[in-house]
Structure formats: structure tokens, C-alpha cells
């Protein structure tokens, strides 16, 4: 069991590291299967390899693929970040929060900053992705490899169908009864989790399509530039949400202490704190990943 887990843990290492040391690490793990401490040691090693990638191993990776990995990695981070952003939107959408935003300058300013940065970053994601989508579609058509474009679309289509069914069901129930029921909370939470899973599957599909599609250096640089912009926008949004959470606790402490969310388990303040943590982690990983792309961007001439 631990041998299998150890082999899975190896997948946490950066691609370049696995290419360079993967075979011998697998041989070592087969010769002396690690215990729980060994698995933790592998996880720590994988994190260290991401934070401080070995130069020799990184130099052996094609710069085009490195940039693709950076752009794809930022996209996955953006999806996780957007899920936390959606939770922030749902947490603060009610009328008392709007009133508090109008009454307290910092609260209002932080909320506006979150919205402005989110809209701008979303636009940059779309603009950065459009040339890549176009190239992937052309490549899929020319090479008869429709799977490249179907894989990212399929999870979104499934989620769209699920959402339509839920809206239809909710409409039928609303006609019969009023108020949010426990069943409604369960359905909403499941919908959110399925949405997150579908979005991650879509992002992973996009990442695969990115690797399967030949791209000119210019397009890769545009993708990396967009990814970098989005990474910093994520930092700005995370800072604005943190400022909002602090301002809410100081200026509208009753609102901050009110139970919130589908099951009314967490207070608004605790929900916001959890959202800030997810956002900061996703943004930090995105910035690290895009920095790694820029390290090899100068060698993109031969792509």
C-alpha cells in the first residue's frame, strides 16, 4: 500500500525533476519501500523541488513545454481561486452587506476592488485563451484529433446540464413552497462541489490541449503574459478580500459574527477567513508557476 502511495507521491514532483530523477527514485522505492515517514519526506521533497527547482533538471526541459506548464498551472490555480471568489460573492450578496458597504468606506472600497479585479482578470483569461483555443481547434481539425477539444468542453457541458436540471427542479419546488430547506442546502453544496470538479477537469483538459497543440513563440508569450497578469490580479483580489474581512470584523462585527453559508455552520468572518486562505495559497502558487515560465521565456526562439 505504502509502495503504491509512494509511487503516486512521486507524481507531485515537477515534471523536470521526474524526468531527471524519476526512474532511479522508483527503483529506490521498489528496493526499499518507504513507511509513512518516507512518504512525508517525499511530499516535503516535492514541495521543495517546486519552490527551488534544480537548475540542471530544469535546463533539460523544452522551454515551450515549460511555458505551457506555467500557463496551464495558472489556469488550474485560477479555477480554485474562482471557486473561493464565488463563495465570497455568495457570502456578501445579501442586502445588509450592501448597506454596510455603503456605510463604511473601507468595506465598500474593498468590495469594489474585488469586483473590478475579478472582472479584469476574467477578461484577461478569456483574451489570453482565445488564440490558444483557435490554434487547438485548427490543430484538432487538421490532425483529426477531436479529443483535444472535446476533453475540456465535456465537463462544462455536463455541469451546464446539471445546472439546468436543478434550476427546473427549484422552479417547480418554489411554486409549491417557500424558504430554503435542508434539502436545498445539500443540493446547493453538491452543485458547488460538482461545479468545482468539472471546472478542474476542464482546466486539466485545457492543459493537455495546450501540450498537444504546436504553438508559435509569440502565442506562448501572450499566454504567459496573461497568466502572469492573472496571477498578480489574484494577489490583489486576495488582499482586497482580506481587507474586507478585517473591515467587516471591525466596522460591522454583528454581520461578521452572523452564521452564513448553506448549512449556517460557519460565521461570515470564519467563511471569509477560509476564502482568504484558499485565495492566498492559489495566488502564491500561480505567481511561483508564472515566474518559472519567465525564467525560460528567453529561450523560446526554437519552439
Amino acid at each position: 500500500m505504502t509502495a503504491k502511495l509512494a509511487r503516486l507521491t512521486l507524481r507531485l514532483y515537477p515534471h523536470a525533476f521526474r524526468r531527471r530523477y524519476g526512474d532511479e527514485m522508483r527503483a529506490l522505492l521498489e528496493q526499499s519501500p518507504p513507511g509513512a515517514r518516507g512518504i512525508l519526506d517525499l511530499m516535503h521533497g516535492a514541495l521543495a523541488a517546486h519552490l527551488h527547482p534544480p537548475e540542471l533538471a530544469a535546463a533539460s526541459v523544452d522551454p515551450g513545454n515549460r511555458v505551457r506548464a506555467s500557463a496551464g498551472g495558472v489556469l488550474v490555480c485560477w479555477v480554485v481561486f474562482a471557486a473561493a471568489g464565488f463563495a465570497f460573492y455568495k457570502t456578501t450578496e445579501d442586502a445588509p452587506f450592501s448597506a454596510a458597504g455603503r456605510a463604511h468606506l473601507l468595506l465598500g472600497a474593498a468590495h469594489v476592488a474585488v469586483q473590478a479585479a475579478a472582472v479584469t482578470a476574467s477578461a484577461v483569461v478569456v483574451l489570453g485563451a482565445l488564440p490558444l483555443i483557435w490554434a487547438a481547434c485548427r490543430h484538432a481539425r487538421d490532425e483529426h484529433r477531436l479529443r483535444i477539444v472535446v476533453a475540456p468542453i465535456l465537463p462544462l457541458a455536463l455541469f451546464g446540464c446539471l445546472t439546468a436540471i436543478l434550476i427546473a427542479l427549484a422552479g417547480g419546488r418554489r411554486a409549491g413552497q417557500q424558504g430554503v430547506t435542508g434539502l436545498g442546502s445539500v443540493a446547493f453544496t453538491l452543485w458547488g462541489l460538482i461545479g468545482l470538479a468539472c471546472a478542474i477537469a476542464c482546466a486539466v483538459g485545457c492543459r493537455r490541449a495546450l501540450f498537444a497543440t504546436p504553438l508559435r513563440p509569440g502565442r506562448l508569450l501572450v499566454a504567459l503574459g496573461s497568466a502572469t497578469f492573472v496571477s498578480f490580479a489574484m494577489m490583489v483580489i486576495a488582499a482586497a478580500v482580506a481587507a474586507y474581512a478585517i473591515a467587516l470584523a471591525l466596522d460591522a462585527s454583528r454581520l461578521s459574527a452572523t452564521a452564513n453559508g448553506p448549512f449556517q455552520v460557519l460565521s461570515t468572518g470564519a467563511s471569509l477567513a477560509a476564502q482568504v486562505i484558499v485565495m492566498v495559497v492559489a495566488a502564491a502558487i500561480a505567481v511561483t508557476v508564472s515566474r518559472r515560465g519567465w525564467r525560460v521565456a528567453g529561450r523560446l526562439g526554437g519552439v
Partner: protein
Amino acid sequence: MLTSLADGPKHGYAITADVQELAGINLGPGTLYGALSRLEDRGLIEALPAEDRRRPYRLTSSGRTALEEQLRSLEAVATRGLRRLRAAEVSP
């Protein structure tokens, strides 16, 4: 790890076993390959062609020099420390 490679090339498993015997430290696989990659980056060790997936590593000339300097420095510290201990035992 450099000391482990002082008497000739070794692959990962042999290094782990040797470090365990030399220093009583149980190197985890993540720590081992993290250290190997850093030592390779610094030019202190180099990889030899793989033998059945296992790649042996050996000291480079700068690795040998760095190890020698480090061991001499440790030797000097150990010698002075022991001398001081003995002097303290002799004096009342």
C-alpha cells in the same frame, strides 16, 4: 553524502545505507534526491550512465576539494575540542 562518495561512485540506495552506517542518519528518498540535485547543480557530484534504472554518482574534482576542505575544518575543530577537554580534565 559527499563523504559517502569519497571511496567511489554509489547509487541512491547505497548512499542511503552508507550514510546510515556512517552518521546514523536515515535519509528519506525526498531528502536524498533533493540533496543529490543540489550537489549536482553546484558541480560537486556528477551522474554516471544508468545501470538498470539506478544511476551511480561520483565526486567531481571540485567536490573532492570541497569535501577535503570541509573534513580538514571539522578535523581542526575536533582536535581543538578534544585538546580543551583534556586540558580541563588535567587542571583542578
